[in-house]
């Protein structure tokens, strides 16, 4: 999996490409240093799929942000990833945003 990370003024932007599963989860984990982070923005537009290992990381991040009064967004999940969020009910927990106007 390829991770593009930027940290700017407390906003952590992570763009993921490829697969977020058991194998690749540790790589993302390594990037989740949240000190001084008040906002996390995940860009999932290039993510093929996500397994529970990846969900765990996202959920942990969401909890941390909520507790710290910060904000987290998850942008442009594809159909598979969006389906996973729906199945697990995480679509009501994550703030899912779409950046293009296409329905």
């Amino acid at each position, binding site marked *: 999996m390829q991770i593009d990370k930027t940290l700017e003024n407390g906003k952590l932007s992570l763009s993921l490409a490829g697969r977020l599963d058991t*194998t690749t989860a540790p790589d993302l984990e390594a990037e989740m240093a949240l000190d001084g982070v008040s906002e996390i923005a995940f860009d999932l537009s290039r993510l093929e799929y996500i397994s529970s*290992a990846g969900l765990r990381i996202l959920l942990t991040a969401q909890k941390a942000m909520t507790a710290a009064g910060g904000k987290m967004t998850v942008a442009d999940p594809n159909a*598979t990833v969006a389906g*996973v969020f729906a*199945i*697990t009910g995480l679509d009501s927990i994550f703030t899912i945003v779409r950046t293009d106007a296409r329905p």
Partner: protein
Amino acid sequence: MLRLATQLRLRLFVLVAVSFGMATWTLWKGESIRARNDVETLLRINYRDLLTGFTDRADYQLSTIARDIANRLGTSGKLASEDIAAICREEEIAEIYDVDARGTVVGGSRIVGADMHAGEQSAFFLRLLDPDGPETLAQPDMPRTSDGKVFKYAAARFPDGSGYLEVGWSEERFLKHLRQRAYGYTRSWHIDERGFIILADSSGTVTSHADMSLAGKSLAETTGLDPGAIPVGTVFRATIAGTDMFCLAGPVRDYLAILADPADDVFASRDRFMPRIAAVQLAVFAALFFLVSRMLRKRVAEAVSRTGDALRRIAGGDLAGRADVRTSLEFAELSDNINATVDALRNAAAERVRRIEAELELGRTIQRAALPTDFPSGEGFRLDAAMQAAREVGGDFYDFFRIDGTHVAFLVADVSGKGITAALYMMTAKTLLKETLLALHDPAAALGKANAELCANNPANMFLTAWVGVLDLETGVVAYANAGHNPPVLVGVRKPDGGAGDVRFLKGKPDPVLAFADGIPYHLRTVPLAPGDALFLYTDGVTEALDSRQALFGEDRLLAAIRAVAEPDPHELCTVVRAAVAAFSEGIPQADDITVLAIRHIAPLRTVSRSFPPTREGISAAAAHLDGALADHPALAPLLPRLHIILDEIASNIVRHSGASGFVVDVTPGANGVQLAFIDDGTPYDPLASDEPDTSLGAAERPIGGLGILMVKKMASSLSYRRSRNRNCLTVGMEAPRPPAG
């Protein structure tokens, strides 16, 4: 049985005839009685006349003698100087008296000087002294004089009124007169036309008769009557000289008078007038008969007949017919009752039709319910079937089911007959075939066993045809047996060069029908299906469908319809053939059930299996393995993301928690989708038994664990777990989306 009109007429005729008879008889009787009464009156009148006439003459004669003598003498007082004896001799009188104006006898045979006033008898003639009175008088009685002699007296006034002259006959003289009188007195006396009077003296000798030649003969001889037995004073009927006569006998002085009138004359008027009356009566009664008869016929017999006609029409099937005869109250009621009955009948008939329809519906429901409609999306085959019932339930059915993991059974059958019986038998046969196939696997053996069962218990003598096949999903070979059923159509897949596939009948002599005779050997045959080939089964409802010209759909049209299908997709085949039959027999009601079943052999299952170490690297390798297995199945590519997720979850679980020494991943791609199997030797763990996490909890409350299994459960089309030989075996199936229709 006579008609009502005739019966009424007969009775009326009898009644009228009897009435006529009675009327006529009564009239006859009346006339007879009247005639009798008339003859009695007549005879009595004549008798009375006879009586008075008989003695009148005597009075007259004696009176004349008295007058003559009185005229000759001219005056009272002269008699004394006459020769009285000579006068008496001359006049044949016994006594003569000259009575003067004072009533004193001044001359005569005796008692000269006597006063006529003295005696009652003598005083009788004093009336003659009255100048306004009669000139002559005759005394009717025959008084007895003091000396016992009986005389008849008469007297005449002297012309100068100076007295009267009385004369008297002696009894002998009177009797002599009477005798003279009695002789032939009645010779010209006719009673009515031919009646007469017979006078006979006290010795029974006839003195007077209409036929005087009979005078002097005895009464008995003349009349044939017994003189001692003749009733006196009442009219009697007797035969006199051969003639039937009405008679009245009565005494006239010392004589017996028999007055007789012939019965024929008595009844003459009756006899003459009765026939005419009878004829008139006959005419009247006949007219009465005809009028009443006609009225009865119109009012009764015709009304009855019309009602009968209405009933006959209704009974003949015209339930809408009505009786409407309203000539009288009773007939109006009868018509109403008939109509009410017919209405009730019609409702009952409609009710019965409704019930029959309900029964038919029930039969159809049974039939429909029995047939599986859950067409399998199994590995290695596609199947579709349809049964289109005729209006009256027939006995077609199809069936399909897995025998084991690699064999699928399918069949089509046709039970003889129609109705609920066929439907129920169909259920029995279907169950039996399924049972035997599941038990024996071999179609021929299954048919043999089923046949034995069906023959053992066949009270309704039903039989059925059946074609049974078992498809081996790995080899594509269909083992089959045919019990008297139509040969299926083998539909070949399109050739690699693009040419159309072969379409031909799977010929072969069928074995006999089921349930007909026991002990029949059924033969097992096989036919290979290449991947993509299909077998099309049907019942004779297809080939024997009729069009409006009574032409059969037939086998050629079936082949043509099938050839028109591009790819032998079962659903396509069934739809197209059904549509072809429907178009062919448009407008004609479906006579028999139409059943179609098509099964297609999809590419055989090829499982790719590899084992991996229980590490992260192992999981990674398994993911690569999955990608490799599906590389040749681009159609299944959309399933990959989810398959990877599932693989990741299961494999992670195994690696993290099971303590297994390794795990195996089997990937089985198919036309239908993909099947994954995970086998590990770790601790027993059934993911299906775990609780699902509560996805309604908020982020703060949500536990991290359990999400993986949830995702697997939600994404997989099928999931099954088995613990066998110390291995956990989890099978996950994911269906490919169906190709769009058309």
